[in-house]
């Protein structure tokens, strides 16, 4: 009984997602049929063919920018997390507070500041510029996750490394990082997803670029050919793949990263 109610609620909640998939398979001629077909009766792949022909470069750019953002985010946030969790710097609490507040700043305001700076530096419409901007969404989150996770690593482990003569950096690199795999995966997944989904920075900082991410690909589609909704929705379906993968993987890794006590004892 409760399962039936749960199924019904989930069906209502996910109806827009179903509709996106349905429309992506609908023929152009059926698009304005009244009433709309609830299933893709005359299913077609023309939407997906359009994606393959027109959107592949956008998808490639998004992949590249996502991976770049992950690399940059990890390089900055993992050492910071180690320091805050294990080395106890004076003023660490203040820094954690600043990171919390940084997450509250609206993206659109960051975008305006970046635009003014990038224009002077001449890095508007470049992939590295977009990677840098996208990483600002993930770095504060990354530092906080790494700090929480590494605080749960038993002190005996790092103490043993010190006794064996390892310096602070060796301890970080050879002992702390390898056992922090779950935190690394969690931060990477979210950094990638946020960079992949970003629209605000893309439209302000890369609006005239030669290489644009998939979010702009969809946005141009909506603006240009308002009729080809199967192609728009097919692109949307493909743009949702990383989120779906994340949901499958996150079940394990997010829980593992959030339950930071996994390494205890």
């Amino acid at each position: 009984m409760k399962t039936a109610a749960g199924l019904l609620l989930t069906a209502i909640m996910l109806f827009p997602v179903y509709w996106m998939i349905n429309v992506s398979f609908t023929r152009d001629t059926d698009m304005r049929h009244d009433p709309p077909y609830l299933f893709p009766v005359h299913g077609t792949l023309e939407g997906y063919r359009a994606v393959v022909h027109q959107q592949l470069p956008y998808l490639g750019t998004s992949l590249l920018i996502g991976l770049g953002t992950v690399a940059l985010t990890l390089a900055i946030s993992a050492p910071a997390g180690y320091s805050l969790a294990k080395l106890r710097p004076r003023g660490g609490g203040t820094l954690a507070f600043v990171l919390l507040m940084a997450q509250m700043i609206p993206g659109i305001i960051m975008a305006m500041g970046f635009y003014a700076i990038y224009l002077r530096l001449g890095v508007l419409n470049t992939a590295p510029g977009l990677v840098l901007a996208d990483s600002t969404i993930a770095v504060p989150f990354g530092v906080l996750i790494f700090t929480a996770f590494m605080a749960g690593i038993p002190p005996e482990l790092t103490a043993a490394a010190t006794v064996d003569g390892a310096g602070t950096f060796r301890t970080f690199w050879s002992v702390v990082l390898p056992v922090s795999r779950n935190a690394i995966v969690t931060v990477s997944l979210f950094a990638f997803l946020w960079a992949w989904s970003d629209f605000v920075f893309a439209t302000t900082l890369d609006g005239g670029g030669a290489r644009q991410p998939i979010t702009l690909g969809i946005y141009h589609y909506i603006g240009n050919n308002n009729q080809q909704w199967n192609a728009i929705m097919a692109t949307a379906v493909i743009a949702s793949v990383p989120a779906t993968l994340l949901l499958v993987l996150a079940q394990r890794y997010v829980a593992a990263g959030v339950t930071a006590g996994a390494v205890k004892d």
Partner: protein
Amino acid sequence: MAHDVLTRAGVAAAAPARAPRRRSGQWAAWGFLAPVVIYLAAFYAYPLYRNLDLSLRHYTVRSFVQGGAPFSGLDNYRAVVDNPTFWPAFLHTIVFTGVSLIFQFTIGMALAVFFAQNFRLSVVLRALFLVPWLLPLIVSASTWSWLLNSDSGVVNALLRALGIDPVNWLTSPSWALTSVIIANIWIGIPFNLVVLYSGLQAIPADLHEAASLDGATGWQRFWRVTFPLLRPVSAITLLLGLVYTLKVFDIIWIMTKGGPTDSSTTFATWSYRLSFGNLLPQFGPGAAVGNLLIVMALVFGLLYIRVQRRTMP
């Protein structure tokens, strides 16, 4: 879940070191922090400073590129407040945020209580509820645009089937704000569900049993036991939701561009339109609106941290 991590990170970073700090240890600690400190200065503080500078000078397109714009004090802020768009945008920001929060929270709470009953498939279904939260905003926004399309949208087809007059969801000034709010509620429900659910898990089950033994009905148990115990988690959920909703830009811009005739314009979309939406960009006023939005977000952000500190054991 998210706030658990933040709390724990805060505790770890703020905990005083028991062992005496050695000078060399401090050097190493700040060595590892150097990248993030430089990063914050260069890519957070500096853009924010540039934004503040933009709002205090009189910029033209020429001086924006070449520099040398004259200082103009609070002129941009005065111009923004006197602009006929200011009060409608302010009102829409409040309505958008308030109505979204009320519905997201209520529905999220109801679903959390429902899923806390642990029936068959409840874990899978709860995971599926996360989908709207994980989708790129442009995907959700364009899907809702088509769902709410006046002529061919499935929502209007449903209304027609029920004998109700169809509505021009996105093209009529009286419905545009409602439409973007509906889409935003849909996107925000999963976050509320997840956080409130994790809060419910922390309430000991025997409290409910005791209340049942005393003859409390399900409804009474919720209002007298669950709801009061969930108050700290609720406060944090609402405040975080508030900060996130204030800065919503993508959904509104993609669905309506703030129109028709400013009827769904908020501070976020107005600020973007002033700076990037016209042929002749008005960077100064755009930055001024953005800074007003930051002040609003930071006030609530500080409130969030206060509440969190107080509710921490």
